[in-house]
């Protein structure tokens, strides 16, 4: 079953809907690409959420500290000048809403799925790695010159059950 077109469409609709409803911001559809599981070096804020069921995997949202603060300021109508607990919590909730809505769309095709509690990482020059070989579908969104990447990796359960178990096994904030 090729879920790629559905996942791309669903991520686009979900991100645009979440930003319009919760932040009052109109985003253009994201630019899709496919990323293989070779580790990348990351800077900034990255939030993960696990998807489990007949198909399983991970969804993530990543952005710069500046964009994370901007999202927090807009969504909570507060002033956020540095990446603090409130900013990380906001990015985690943003991920929950975006991936949660994608999950709901996917359930129409693959049956019931479960979501984990999000985990947020904030740091510089860190790498993420999944043990599997599955491709990540990546959509890049832009807001005032800053990029936000939304990634989804999903495969039939037996191929993906071991993806990122260490990152999804606990809730809360992990600073690297």
């Amino acid at each position, binding site marked *: 079953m090729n879920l790629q077109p559905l996942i791309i469409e669903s991520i686009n609709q979900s991100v645009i*809907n*979440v930003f319009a*409803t*919760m932040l009052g911001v109109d985003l253009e559809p994201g630019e899709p690409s496919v990323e293989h599981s070779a580790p990348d070096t990351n800077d900034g804020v990255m939030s993960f959420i696990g998807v489990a069921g007949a198909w399983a995997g991970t969804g993530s949202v990543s952005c710069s500290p500046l964009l994370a603060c901007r999202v*927090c300021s807009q*969504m*909570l*109508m*507060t002033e956020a000048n540095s990446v603090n*607990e*409130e900013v990380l*919590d*906001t990015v*985690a*909730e943003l991920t*929950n*809403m975006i991936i*949660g*809505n994608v*999950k*709901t769309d996917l*359930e129409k095709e693959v049956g*019931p*799925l479960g*979501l984990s*509690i999000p985990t947020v990482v904030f740091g510089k020059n860190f790498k993420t790695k999944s043990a599997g070989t599955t491709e990540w579908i990546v959509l890049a969104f832009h807001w005032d010159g800053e990029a936000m990447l939304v990634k989804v990796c999903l495969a039939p359960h037996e191929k993906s059950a071991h993806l990122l178990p260490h990152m999804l096994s606990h*809730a809360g904030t992990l600073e690297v």
Partner: protein
Amino acid sequence: MESDILVVDDSAAIRKILQRVLRQTGMAIHAVYEAGDGQEALTLMGTQKVDLVLSDINMPKMDGLQLLAAIKASDHWRHVPVVMITTEGGETKVGEAVRLGAAGYVRKPFTADQIKEKLAGILEPALPL
């Protein structure tokens, strides 16, 4: 009569947004209490009068469905309406919430109008619009 509302969500961001949204609705609200999970919610309900619970489903320790079941199993609290507010749109968890006695549900992301419309339908005429 002013109502006391309990917001239950593990996300402090969502609790803060709901505090603001509930104040913006213009409904007659006396207090908005907060809890980060089902256990905290039950502890708070033991000490405060609560007229309506607005609860997330996916939470650590005790999730929203467990909280709903506990409220509906209690002689003291079973009359308290519980509205689920969640990213869950699938029939499995929403159907389970309805079966357990949820008064309704609102999907995330939500607007202030959606919250107002849902709560007004449940708390009328206690909360005049």
